[in-house]
């Protein structure tokens, strides 16, 4: 996180020294773009706050620990798609799942959909790229996550 602040600060400083008018224009553009996306951001935050309440960590571990592999993979990719977690929360959770005996295949289905498929970010993505691209991209990503999970299962000897 600090790297981001330092990079932004330095970039602004260098830009300002090089051309102050351009830099002011850049900040105005930044502000305008941020304000434009605020309504979609707000609805996303509201959706996140409700979904995280309905699907807490305990629910995730109880669903993914099921004995039926295919059911678990399905549930994992479903839960990964509907929730949204920053990496520093998601990966420790995945680590705990592995320790609890959840298979690599299921953990990978969960973590990959978590990163690639965003039903909660739909409102934002649609704002930029339109409905059609958003739906297609998410479907493709879901498919990729399933393929990754399947190959994980093969490589770690959990399948076949």
């Amino acid at each position, binding site marked *: *996180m600090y*790297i*981001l*602040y330092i*990079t*932004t600060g330095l*970039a*602004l400083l260098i*830009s300002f020294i090089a051309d102050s008018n*351009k*830099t002011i*224009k*850049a900040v*105005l*553009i*930044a*502000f305008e*773009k*941020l304000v434009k996306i605020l309504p979609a*951001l*707000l*609805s996303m*935050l*509201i959706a*996140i*706050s*409700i979904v*995280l*309440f309905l699907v807490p960590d305990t629910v995730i571990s109880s669903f993914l620990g099921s004995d039926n592999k295919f059911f678990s993979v399905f549930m994992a990719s479903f839960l990964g798609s509907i929730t949204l977690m*920053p*990496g*520093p929360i998601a*990966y*420790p959770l*995945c*680590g705990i799942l*592995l320790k609890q005996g959840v298979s690599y295949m299921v953990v*990978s289905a969960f*973590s*990959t959909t978590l*990163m*690639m498929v*965003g039903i909660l*970010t739909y409102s*934002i*993505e649609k704002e*930029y*790229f*339109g409905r*059609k*691209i958003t739906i*297609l991209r998410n479907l*493709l*990503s879901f498919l*990729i996550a399933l*393929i*990754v999970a399947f*190959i*994980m299962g093969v*490589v770690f000897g959990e399948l076949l």
Partner: protein
Amino acid sequence: MMNQKNLIKISALFLYIFFIVLSFIFKFNMGKQIGYNFAGFFLHMFKLLPCVFILIGLFDVWIKKEVIEKHLGKDSGVLSYLWALLLAGPIAGGLLPAFPIAYSLFHKGARLSIVFTFIGAAAVCRIPMTLFEASFLGIKFSLIRLAISIPLVILSSIWLGNYLEKQDYQIMKG
């Protein structure tokens, strides 16, 4: 002009705020938890997004359209996919900041398949995230995941890009 859709959205927003405030006054656990979730993610976003948008603004004023067109545009070669991966590598915070960045790239002349590769790469092969992943799930896990997902991301992006270009799909100008 306030249309019906906006009216519903605004009433839902007020209902939500009303519910959270009441929950805190009457110590209603469900509402409090939802309120905490909202605050947590709100802080997470607003530590990140202002920087991201400032960088986008600087990108907008400094980087010439010809540069992006040449390296990421219609006539750019295979190397452009590598560029997309490298650009996505240092991004923090996942898909959310990637969308406005990808959008800016597109309007500077990057072709669609590159834009999608960038978004996919921002999801699956960010460097900070992958380091984190490897430390919790093992290096073997991360390497396999990267080895499978990167080619799939590129292939699906090429397909999606071609498909949309054939349909003459337009992303609105912004």
